[in-house]
């Protein structure tokens, strides 16, 4: 709410308190906010204070959203210093052991606590080796991806927009319209929802994956057929933190083309493409694949619940009666980041099949059929972990209660 307000009030402090953690050890020191210096100096300082002069490090920090972000150049180093409020939490990893998947908005949102705790608390346990690295995160955050390419008809496209933590507006409009579909009764004109406008500079436009007159078929795995424009609007806004839209692009020339042979690996992608053009065909294919159409394969329903990070501010016990300290009470309150409900152990295969668009790669990866069961397994086993993790987080003092 008035987060900015608080940030500004604490920014008057010129010193940035740094808590740097490497393995089980941590060091505390401070930096001058106004003169942060260069990244390589800072890097040397870290090696110095941790007394690991010859260890190659991967430096990460927790940003205001609780995301673990890398520090590897002057820019992001300065960003980290300037946004620290007031504590800058650093996490150092040996470069050879580094888990790159821990970085970035999305991965953290889903697995923040797991990753953080893995980084923080159990650095030496036998973790899975990181999977094939598609691209190093470095300065990038994913902004969008095409997902479930292997289970959707080629005429459809499932786009995920990563709004979380972005300043950019989602930036598109939808409208009512009608589309002709092939049904059992023949051609039929049915009402549908279409993208009507893109806001220049918005997230939707910048991805290039959505366009005006694309027909919206699903929102986060739920079919929009039979729903009113207002209902679909509300659904999209309710899911805006992690919006997954399945569209039938108006322009069908840029569809992902699956090579017939290569598709055999994923088992389900070697379909003929002609029947996929119709909505009916789409449904029947999904039915043939013996799974409900609303399942978004790579991002199962639980996975979507990333908007759980309600901000809880605890007031100080010493606070005066509010009459004397009216609305703009400047009590020392800090945001506390609640561990969210959907903790689970890292299921690396999940994020692997999402394509980072910023990486400019169109590497289709498979492993889709495995991901469902994988998630089911993790969701059932995660609860004891969850309790344990929460407790340990508290012990660690990550939950700041003034």
């Amino acid at each position: 709410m008035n987060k900015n307000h608080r940030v500004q009030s604490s920014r008057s402090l010129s010193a940035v308190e740094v808590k740097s953690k490497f393995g089980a050890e941590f060091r505390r020191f401070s930096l001058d906010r106004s003169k942060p210096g260069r990244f390589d100096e800072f890097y040397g300082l870290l090696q110095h204070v941790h007394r690991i002069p010859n260890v190659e490090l991967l430096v990460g920090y927790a940003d205001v959203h609780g995301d673990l972000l890398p520090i590897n150049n002057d820019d992001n180093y300065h960003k980290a210093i300037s946004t620290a409020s007031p504590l800058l939490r650093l996490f150092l990893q040996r470069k050879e052991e580094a888990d790159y998947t821990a970085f970035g908005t999305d991965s953290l949102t889903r697995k923040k606590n797991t990753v953080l705790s893995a980084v923080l608390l159990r650095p030496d346990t036998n973790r899975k080796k990181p999977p094939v690295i598609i691209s190093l995160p470095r300065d990038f955050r994913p902004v969008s991806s095409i997902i479930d390419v292997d289970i959707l008809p080629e005429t459809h496209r499932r786009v995920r927009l990563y709004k979380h933590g972005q300043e950019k507006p989602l930036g598109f409009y939808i409208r009512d319209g009608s589309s002709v579909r092939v049904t059992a009764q023949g051609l039929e004109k049915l009402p549908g929802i279409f993208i009507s406008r893109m806001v220049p500079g918005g997230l939707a436009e910048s991805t290039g994956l959505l366009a005006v007159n694309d027909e919206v078929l699903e929102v986060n795995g739920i079919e929009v057929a039979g729903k009113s424009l207002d209902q679909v609007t509300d659904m999209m806004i309710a899911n805006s933190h992690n919006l997954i839209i399945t569209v039938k692009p108006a322009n069908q020339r840029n569809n992902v083309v699956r090579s017939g042979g290569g598709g055999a690996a994923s088992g389900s992608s070697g379909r003929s493409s002609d029947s996929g053009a119709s909505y009916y065909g789409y449904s029947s294919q999904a039915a043939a694949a013996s799974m409900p159409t609303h399942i978004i394969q790579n991002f199962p329903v639980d996975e979507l619940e990333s908007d759980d990070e309600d901000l809880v501010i605890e007031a100080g016990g010493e606070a005066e009666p509010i009459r004397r300290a009216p609305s703009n009470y400047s009590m020392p309150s800090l945001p506390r980041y609640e561990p969210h409900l959907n903790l689970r152990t890292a299921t690396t295969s999940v994020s692997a099949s999402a394509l980072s668009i910023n990486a400019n790669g169109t590497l289709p990866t498979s492993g889709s059929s495995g991901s469902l069961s994988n998630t089911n397994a993790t969701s059932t086993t995660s609860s004891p972990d969850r309790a344990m993790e929460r407790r340990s987080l508290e012990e660690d003092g990550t939950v700041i209660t003034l």
Partner: protein
Amino acid sequence: DSGERVRKPPCHPSPVCLLFPPQTVEHGFPHQPSALGYSPSLQLLAIGTRSGAIKLYGAPGVEFMGLHDENAAVTQVHFMPHQVELVTLLDDNSLHMWTLRGHKGLSELLEIGRFTLTGPPGAPPSVTRVTAVLAHTSGELLLLGTEGGHVFIVEVPGFRELEERNISLDQVAASVPDDYIGRRNLEHVEALQENPINPNQVVIGYGRGLMVIWDLEKRCAIQHIPATQQLESVWWTEDGSYILSSHSDGSYCRWMVGGEDVNDEEEKSDIPYGHFPCKAISKIIQLPTEEGPPFLLFSGGMPRASYGDRHCITVIHSKTHVALDFTSRIIDFFVIRDGLQHTGDPSALVVLVEEELVVIDLQTDCWPVIQTPYLVPLHSSAITCSHHVSAIPLKLWERVIAAGELQNTHYSKKPWPITGGQNLAPDPPQRDLLLTGHEDGTVHFWDASGVCLYPLYKLSTAGVFHTDADPNDNMNQGAEGEWPPFRKVGCFDPYSDDPRLGIQKIHLCKYSGYLTVAGTAGQILVLELNDEAAEQTVEAKVVDLLQGQEGFRWKGHTRLDVREEPVLFPPGFQPFALVQCQPPAVVTALTLHSEWKLVAFGTSHGFGLYDYQQKNTVLIKCTLNPSDQLAMEGPLSRVKSIKKSLRQSFRRIRRSRVSLRKHHVNNTAKVVSGLQEANARLEAELAEMELAPVQRKIEARSSDDSFTGLVRTLYFADTFLSDSSHNTPSLWAGTNGGCVFAYMLRLPPVEHRADEPVTAQPAKEIQLMHRAPVVGIVVLDGHGAPLPEPLEVAHDLARSPDMQGSHQLLVISEEQFKVFTLPKVSAKMKLKLTAVDGSRVRRVGVAWFCSSRTEDYGESGLVVLTNQGDVHVVSLPHVKMQVQYPCIRREDVSGIASCVFTKHGQGFYLISPSEFERFSLSTCYLVEPRCLVEAPLHSGSSSQRRSQPDGASSTHRYTQLEYVSNCDTSTRFFFSRSRRP
């Protein structure tokens, strides 16, 4: 969830109603009534509406309802004399036969036939367009007069046309004396009346003025009455010797019936409000009295220029002459008569006007109004909010009734004269109050326990303030000797003196009798029930909710001006404390804790906590968004921008019209290309409109949105806010921007309550990530049950909450239900609504569902109404979706907004400005009409009538008829379904 299942006894019937539809009964006054009918033998009155509904009312609690398939207005309703059937005429020219049929010991209203007149092939539709209906006393014939001037005779109930008996216009015209207005067109049949002493004679009144007495047996005209004014209505006096006709020029005439004398002069003609041109007398009735002069009643006839806008019924009896002046259009009226055969003295005049039903006692001096037990206009001033309180303690109930009785002294003492049918509904299990807030600053208290929504008491808050209206402005009595002698009747008064007085929020504590109401101009009144009148000054406390926020300018209305002198308050709820918010924005949330003696209130700027014992403010919190106020515009900016865009679009339309007109004017002079140019431009504009269809912006909510600070809900709870071992009083507030503020309250010990201050300190602030408006906050105790209401435990009416286990906080936003742990606020579980089906929570309430079979079993749940008009029941504490019903049409935004839930799983919503629909989700609490109407005995009110042809003449033709409105009648089902799209 397994935990929930274990709690539930095995094989237990769900206490949540699974039947569709859940609607049970309608309260209030039917919207847009269009026809009135009355059966003296059944003592039932029937009202037809423009939407095609037909509603029957008898004794209080006896009601029936039906809906025609056709979505056409009911233009006429006629009971078949001495039968349980009635005929309706719709404006699509179809006739419908309804009956009250017995079923399982109750009566139900069923449509048993329909009929449309078919004329000869090739005839114009006017030939069969029905304009007048006469239900013949034989009970076997319907006479249908048409626009073409014919009278068709139809046998009922089968609707068999008796062609040979039809009275064609030619037959009548042939016998009209030649000198009658040169044999001009007689026009449509305006009126049909039966001779009260000879059912074989009917008078046919034609629009042109001619009346013909026709003998049905002999099939010939007996007498012609050559009136020359346009005919409005006809009345045959009871002794059969005179016919009264009323005309469009405001005159009425009396004609002697007798013999074959065709040239009978009118015996008496009068224009009661004469000299200057008068409006038509649309209906006239004359009824004899045992001794003394007859009653003459007619509607209309007012002098056109001076009082043409009045809606009047004139009653003349002996020297008494009163023009009853109604506030809305008169639909129809009838008179109830004394005596077993209903042939005695007139006892009551029943008038259906567009917005209410008024019954006048004609046997008490001054003809006072009899208070109606049903059909009460809920909307005497527009309803602005409602509040329901279940299970009122008897003591409070009696005090409210006593206060109300003192207000009703001007009503007649006579019992309600319409007494047909028996109310077989069991006595309501508890006393329920429905409070409605109105635009004029009044709060009406209604007995909502049973089928009849009965007015108990009316509270007016306007007296606290100075308003433009002069309190001594009594519109009731005109000056002495005024002509016509008007007398205002009816309570429908849609004009509000000052819209700022409008009541927006109500909270009544049923245990202590404390009431708080809040209004449009940021006023919050705290009232206390006092059985004596009292004169007191109400001190206002102005509360600045902006708390020094800069750059904000209020552009709305000003605060209400409080009377500084003492005001005399009648017995009832009397205000003793007043808070006025600054800026004086509409109060959006209000709650009262009578045990702590605190009132919390919120507006779009913030919220406050007021201690009404010490009469001071404990807490003020501004919730205005700092980034919102950067706009320097205040919260009206959005409103303004809407206005601006509206203005622009109007301008655009006007511009295009103007240019179009200009082209039309100059059409002849201009070259053709100019017109083409204009057309092209218009086409382009149209194309643009078509190209820019309705579209919706998809954008995540941000803290910068307007009105995020609007306080949507306030809640008091005694719970664990700081640590898990000490519970403290607390105040919770939820905003439009998805923010929840929690304050810990410190109350002085009871002995020092009057002098030590109450303090509040901020304890927690939760910002929901999805930022949806918070519409409800509930704390669940250690057993997962919602905390009881204040004083509920003290009065032994609720189990004390479990304070051992850990409490949970349930935050209901428009989009999801979320449970947090307490005192450490961490998310525990949630139920998403909007993300899954795109609907949003509009109304939410906690309800207790008890089983109808097992008394000691019940479940609490959330009752939720969405913007799609669906009602959901969500279990507690596990927030699982239980059932879902379609309840209100999604387009009916005002209906959805008006919905209020009871604590026992019922609900009310407005289906029109004047009617509440009641629905029930509970199997235990069902309020529905259950009534029985017996067919009248055919002992024969008149010796003239032929004996019954069949064996039905046995004295105990005692048909038991029934009507269950909820589950098993097709009529009822029909009705609810057809209201849906």
